[in-house]
Every structure is written in C-alpha cells, then in structure tokens.
C-alpha cells in the first residue's frame, strides 16, 4: 500500500496505526534476512509512536497527512538514544543525545520511525557494499546491489518493508539507488532540507531526501521535512513550494524539457537507453517539447567532484578520533597521537581511508590551487551551464544511471568504474539544483529497473514533481500498476 492509502485507512479507522506498524515489523522479520536493509529495528519506539497516533485519533485531535505512516531512516541521521552508525565500526553502538531536524520533523508529523537502515560506510559508495555491517541486497535480485550509498533506504521501500524512507545524496546516493530498485528518489535543491543532525560527508553537496514507491508519496514526505532550519546556516529561508500539488497536477503540455548532450556516451546499457527513449516519447505525447542542449563543462564534473568531495570529507571525518565517542583503540601505553591513528585505522574501512587520504592530499599546500581550488572553479562553470540550460528549458531529463544493478562484488576493486555510474547525477550536486529519479521500466537484457532523472533549477523542485507525476501516471497506466508489482516475491 502507498503512504497515501495507509494514512487514509488509519484516519478512516479501517485499521489502526499499531496494526500498520505491526504488519511492517512482520514483513521485516520475514524478509530482511535476505535484504539486510535494517541495522537497528526500533520496535519499542515505533510501537509507542503508533499507539500515540491511535490515541490522538480516538480523542479527535487533528492529524497530518502522514500520521501513522511508517518510515525507514538511513543510519546517517541522528536519532536520539538509538544507535547511529553511518555503516561504520567507528560509530558502532553510538547513541546520539539529540535528534536530527529531519527525524524530529517526522516525529512531529506523527510518523512511525521503524528503525535505521544500511548505507555505504559514511555514505562513500554507490552500492552499499562498503558498509561494515555487510551489504544490503536488491529486492529485484538478491545477488545484486540495491545502489548506494542509500541502499538500505531503497531496499526497504522496494522490498515493502516500509512505504517511505529518508536517505542522503551527495553525488547520486538517493537517485541511483532509486533507479536500480524501481523506486522514486528525490534530491532537493541544496538547502531545501535541513542538514542538522546528518553526519556530514561533503557539506557543500549533501542533501537529505525522500524515497517512496510513488511520486505523490515522495512529495508528501518531502513536504513534511522541507523548509528553513535556523540550526542549519545553509538551509533556504523561503516559503516551501507545494510539491504535493505539483505531483498531482499531471499536466505538462507546453513544458520544454532538455536533454544534455554531454550525458550521453559509452558505457550505457542498451536496455536502459531503450527505456529512456520510450519515456522521452511519452513525454512528447503528453505535450512537452524536447530540446537538445550542450553543457560542455559537464565533462569535467566527475573530476571536480572527486576532488571536492574527498577534501570536505577528510575534514568532516577528522572528529572521529576516539576521544569523545565511538571506537577507541588504546593499549594503555600509547600516546594520544598513536591512539587516534590506531582508532581510525581500525574503525574506518578502505574506501573511507582512501577518500580521506585523497582529500588530505588535495588540500595540502602546494596542491590546493591545482586541485581543490581548481575544482571549485569547475563547479562555477557547471552552475553557469545549468543556468544557461534552464534559460532555454523548464527542466532537464536524463537516464539516472547508465547501467542497472550490478552483482555484489563485481566492481569493488575498480574504484574508477564505480565512479562512472555517477556521471549523470554528480553535476546536479555540484550546482546545487534539484534532481529526482522515477522508474521507467525494466531493461531488456536483465529485466532490472531503470530510472529517468528529472532536474529543475534551484528552488523549483515542484517542477520536477510535475514532470514526474505526469510521466508516472502514463507509465503506470501502461504497466497496469507500479513497476514494483513486477518484482519477484521475496
């Protein structure tokens, strides 16, 4: 059932919030051993939240549109008194003394937070294979990855363990998992959702966003958690657009949609391209004009990203030194300098160490201007190219990922190959514009899901929902149901 259906059913008292929570915990118990999506299941907390919703309902209190709806929370969001590990050994069993703003807004919306879900360690990766707690699998084929770094979130939603999830996206970590699991995933305009309480990877790129099975569900969650937060200086202090209305609008006649030439290239799976072209045809039939554009700086986006992101993360992850929380490796004889080095050696996985080393190097004197400083300039060029594109079109479209879900273990030893998956998603983070992925069908070769990415200008996220809602409507019609209905039973 969708979030909309669940919320309506609870309000109409067809079933209680407690019933809904219990059903989801049953599903988790039955299925999660195959998926390994959940790192911590908060049955006590969730049942209490559900019971509270039922109580409010009984006393006639007004409840919001997502009251009683369960949600899975990527283990990068702090949630008071329950473990937040970021998929790392260095934070094993760390219980934060505070809630992230996203978590607290979901609690205020009377949602039921089922627990924390798996992720690539410190959000570094596109497959959830770097998690210290084992990989999560794709419900479509459990020998394959669910995408990353928000793989636990996408698997939970695709596996019907939760109707909604929250994840984070720094270079594609919401959109790509959504694409490879046949779900909807949204990265808002940078600053659209508060980063307070989200363990930082790359501060100038990170954004939280919703996962759902439908565009409308995603819009509802997005609406509930978006908006200015005085605790986050980078959050946007403007009224939130109406994403829900946009998702319901479904009319895109007269809209101009752009396809960026530089997103094309080798490495695209033929089946993915087929689904993409079919989706483009549908958009045309719905009355949109499709335009081809060039954004020349996009060919440098990957290179710029792979300097900016490790640099910021090398600084953000410095605080994990074993002094105040988390793992400490101390033989009793060592100096603090040694304890810090030993703790970080033991607590961080290889991908995290690699990115910290790259970032430390890129920021060092002698290299700053050539590497980090230059990357900041490429960023400016990319933002300018987006601006130029949006002066010609209302939104941009592309395949979200060039390939479908690969097999677990297939790409681990080839970091560059992994990075090439992010070619369409990374420029979006660098410019700070919004981007979302909607399922567009299964690739011919492997019957695995593919997604289309829709991008809109800064602070125009509602435009993405409008296009996505229209496209989804047409596709669901042609499929006779959600794409996920075609997924194998777990």
């Amino acid at each position, binding site marked *: 059932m969708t979030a909309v259906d669940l919320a309506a059913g609870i309000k109409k008292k067809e079933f209680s919030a407690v019933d809904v929570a219990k059903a989801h915990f049953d599903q988790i118990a039955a299925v999660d051993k195959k998926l390994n999506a959940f790192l911590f299941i908060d049955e006590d907390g969730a049942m209490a939240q559900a019971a509270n919703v039922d109580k409010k309902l009984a006393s006639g209190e007004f409840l919001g549109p997502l009251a009683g709806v369960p949600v899975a929370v990527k283990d990068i969001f702090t949630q008071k008194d329950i473990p937040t590990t970021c998929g790392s050994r260095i934070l094993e069993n760390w*219980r934060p003394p505070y809630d992230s703003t996203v978590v607290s807004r979901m609690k205020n919306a009377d949602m039921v937070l089922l627990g924390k879900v798996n992720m690539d360690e410190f959000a570094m990766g596109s497959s959830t294979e770097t998690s210290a707690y084992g990989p999560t699998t794709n419900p479509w084929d459990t020998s394959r990855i669910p995408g990353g770094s928000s793989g636990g979130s996408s698997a939970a939603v695709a596996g019907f363990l939760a109707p909604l999830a929250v994840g984070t996206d720094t270079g594609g970590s919401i959109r790509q998992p959504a694409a490879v699991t046949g779900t909807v995933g949204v990265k808002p305009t940078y600053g659209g959702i508060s980063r307070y309480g989200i363990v930082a990877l790359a501060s*100038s790129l990170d954004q939280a966003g919703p996962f759902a099975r439908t565009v409308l569900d995603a819009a509802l969650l997005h609406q509930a958690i978006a908006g200015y937060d005085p605790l986050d200086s980078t959050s946007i202090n403007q009224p939130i657009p109406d994403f829900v209305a946009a998702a319901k609008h479904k009319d895109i006649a007269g809209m101009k949609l752009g396809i960026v030439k530089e997103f094309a290239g080798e490495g695209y799976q033929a089946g993915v391209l087929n689904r993409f072209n079919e989706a483009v045809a549908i958009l045309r039939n719905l009355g949109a004009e499709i335009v081809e554009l060039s954004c020349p700086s996009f060919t440098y986006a990957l290179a710029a990203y792979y300097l900016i992101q490790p640099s910021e993360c090398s600084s953000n992850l410095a605080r994990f030194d074993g*002094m105040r929380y988390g793992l400490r490796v101390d033989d009793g004889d060592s*100096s*603090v300098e040694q304890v810090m080095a030993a703790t*970080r050696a033991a607590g961080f996985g290889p991908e995290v160490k690699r990115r910290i*080393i790259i970032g430390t*190097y890129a920021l060092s004197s002698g290299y700053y201007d050539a590497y980090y400083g230059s990357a900041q300039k490429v960023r400016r060029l990319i933002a300018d190219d987006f601006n130029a594109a949006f002066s010609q079109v209302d939104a941009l479209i592309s395949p979200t990922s060039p390939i479908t879900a690969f097999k677990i273990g297939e790409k681990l030893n080839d970091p*560059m190959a992994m990075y090439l998956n992010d070619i369409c998603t990374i420029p979006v983070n660098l410019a700070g514009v919004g981007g979302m992925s909607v399922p567009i069908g299964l690739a011919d070769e492997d019957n695995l899901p593919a997604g289309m990415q829709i991008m809109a200008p800064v602070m125009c996220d509602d435009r993405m929902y409008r296009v996505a809602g229209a496209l989804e409507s047409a596709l669901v019609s042609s499929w006779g149901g959600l794409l996920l209905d075609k997924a194998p039973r777990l």
Partner: protein
Amino acid sequence: MSKLSRDELRSIADLARIALTEAELDQFSSQLDVILDSVAKVQEIVNDEIKPMSHALDINNVFRADVVGNSLSATDALAAAPASEDDRFRVPRILEEE
C-alpha cells in the same frame, strides 16, 4: 612508478592520523595514482578569471541572535565517552604540545 612517493604517502597518512599498514600503502599508492591522474583533468579548463564557487546559494549574513539556548547535561555529554573522570573526558597522554 607511483606519482606519490612512499614517504609522501606516509606523511599524508600521518597528517590524517590514520596508521596505514605497508600493504595498505602499496594498495593505496596505485589506486591513488589512477584517481589523481583523472583529477588533474580539471586543470584543463580553469583560468584566473573564473570565480570559485563554494555554495550553491548566493546568500550572505546568516546569523543568530546572542540569546542563551539549551545545553546538554554533563551526563549526556559524556554518555558515549570511551573514558571519563570527574565529569571530564579522559584522553591518553599528549606528546606534542600545541
């Protein structure tokens, strides 16, 4: 031949406070090169006229009023501390004075 010398790699690891094993130094050395090669690419299109961008938002002057808010209790602050004493975090002996 790696672009980064072993010594350079060791001193970066030291700066980053990560104790790398010899095996890790080997492994990282070659992997880093591949990445470093590709990122030198950014040099190709930049020049002095381009203004670097660090924020997607063109906003300035985001401030907070000088008003006292909530603090944590010492118990909460120290709850996750690997070691503590007298309501303070206990840390191993410091060699290098800052």
